[in-house]
């Protein structure tokens, strides 16, 4: 009888241990996803099941489901931005050959940037929310896309960057502009992005932009063509000259990250 009770006790302990192991396994399986999404953006945000569901439909659904999901995310607006931004580094590769990406990944990247572009359009709060949540990984991914060889993705990414790049992130864009292998379309796009923040550039960025413009001018030379790039360069110089912040350092304005000590000589990643 005592033996029977002991066996039953051992059995119960084993069952409880098995449950504990199962719960732990579940936690281990889920925890990387939670950590990933929380690391992917800098801001805290409320996890919404409708946004997560729409994102799943966007990735896996058929065309009508994807359209419905895109419309739903657009309706949710800026509250969906952190979720959407978290997927950017995962789905936008760090190279300019976007036409060579797997088709499903490229198509998702186009739809994703389409939605973000629509949310940012004419919405000040959405632009500020994006800046609050953005990371270097997101800006780098979008910068590669804005100079890539897929036109739709390039235009979407450039439009997003033109709205969200500021003194804290323009150095990533300038770094790409110094790359001699950049395409003419990519150069024009990134010059346009730089132009959008030149009127309030701080001291370090004024120096960075000036050096970059010299580099770009040397790249395109004085020959014919590149009229749009040359026109934007003139506009950037004029806007930068009128910046009220041109003599103020980023550090004194508490804008140290990421451009205060940016290393332009490092390789592009």
């Amino acid at each position: 009888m005592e033996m029977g009770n002991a066996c039953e006790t051992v059995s119960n302990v084993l069952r409880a241990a098995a449950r504990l192991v199962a719960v732990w396994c579940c936690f281990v399986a889920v925890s990387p996803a939670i950590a990933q999404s929380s690391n992917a953006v800098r801001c805290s945000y409320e996890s919404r099941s409708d946004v997560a569901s729409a994102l799943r439909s966007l990735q896996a659904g058929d065309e009508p489901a994807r359209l419905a999901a895109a419309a739903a995310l657009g309706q949710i607006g800026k509250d969906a931005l952190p979720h959407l931004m978290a997927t950017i580094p995962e789905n936008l590769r760090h190279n300019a050959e976007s036409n060579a990406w797997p088709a499903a990944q490229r198509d998702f990247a186009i739809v994703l940037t389409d939605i973000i572009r629509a949310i940012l359009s004419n919405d000040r709060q959405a632009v500020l929310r994006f800046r609050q949540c953005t990371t270097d990984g997101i800006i780098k991914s979008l910068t590669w896309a804005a100079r890539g060889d897929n036109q739709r993705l390039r235009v979407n990414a450039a439009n997003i960057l033109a709205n969200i790049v500021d003194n804290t992130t323009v150095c990533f864009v300038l770094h790409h502009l110094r790359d001699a292998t950049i395409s003419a379309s990519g150069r024009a796009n990134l010059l346009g992005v730089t132009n959008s923040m030149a009127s309030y550039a701080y001291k370090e960025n004024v120096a960075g932009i000036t050096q970059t413009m010299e580099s770009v001018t040397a790249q395109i030379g004085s020959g014919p063509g590149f009229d749009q790039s040359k026109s934007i360069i003139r506009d950037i110089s004029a806007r930068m000259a009128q910046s009220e912040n041109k003599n103020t350092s980023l550090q004194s304005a508490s804008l140290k990250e990421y451009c205060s000590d940016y290393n332009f000589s490092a390789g592009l990643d």
Partner: protein
Amino acid sequence: MQNTEAAKPVDAALKPETAALDGDQSAAAIQVLQLLFTRSIEFSRSGFFFILLGCGFLYFAYHVLYHVHPTFVFILALLGLSIVLFGTGTQSLGSGEFTEPASQARTKFYLAGGAGVLAGIFGFGAVLGSEKIERVFANSSGYALVVFEISNPAGSNLQQATVVTHLRDGRQLPVLVRDTSIEVLAPILRGYGKLDVCIEARGPERKWSIEHGCPTLDLKDNAPGQRPEPVQSIGTVRLDIKYVNTLGLDEGGKSTPATTFIAN
């Protein structure tokens, strides 16, 4: 049977009278026909006949107004009017006779009739105003050429645009995209002085757009030589391209000078 047999002699007695009666009736009919013919001839010489004939021509001109060339309509109307005037008695303006009292010689003169004079005047007018006649007698329905002149400072390629144009009632309109303008053919009725045409256009990848709107255009007659298109009227309006603008916000959310951004 008895009745039939009895009736035979009676019929035989009536036959000569019937023949005489038939002869009278034929003669009367001929007389009636002759009378009708005579009256018809007389009627065809009367002024009322010419009024009716002229009205017939005018009605015919009206009937074929939408189906034949305006010049033919003009000739029919002119002919109808002339015949009506002839019928009303204006066929002769007057005549006179000069006679020398001491001489047997007489000089008679006749002035051309009113219809003839009018026909001459109309004919002369037809030569002088041949270009305007076509417009006067043209169909009352036709097309207006609506020209949207596009203000395009960045030199965006309009030919790549997706353009939708329609009337306020929803009818879609054919559209021609040129280098600096977008042109539309809109159906109109004669007498239209103003027309609302709705337009919306988007550049490739939504780089730029012409926002949806239904501007009211003042239509002017298509003067000969102005435009080669066979349209009655022309209306022109200027539209601006809208580019994707950045919001111009600094790190603190303060507004800064916005830029017009044209992604490639």
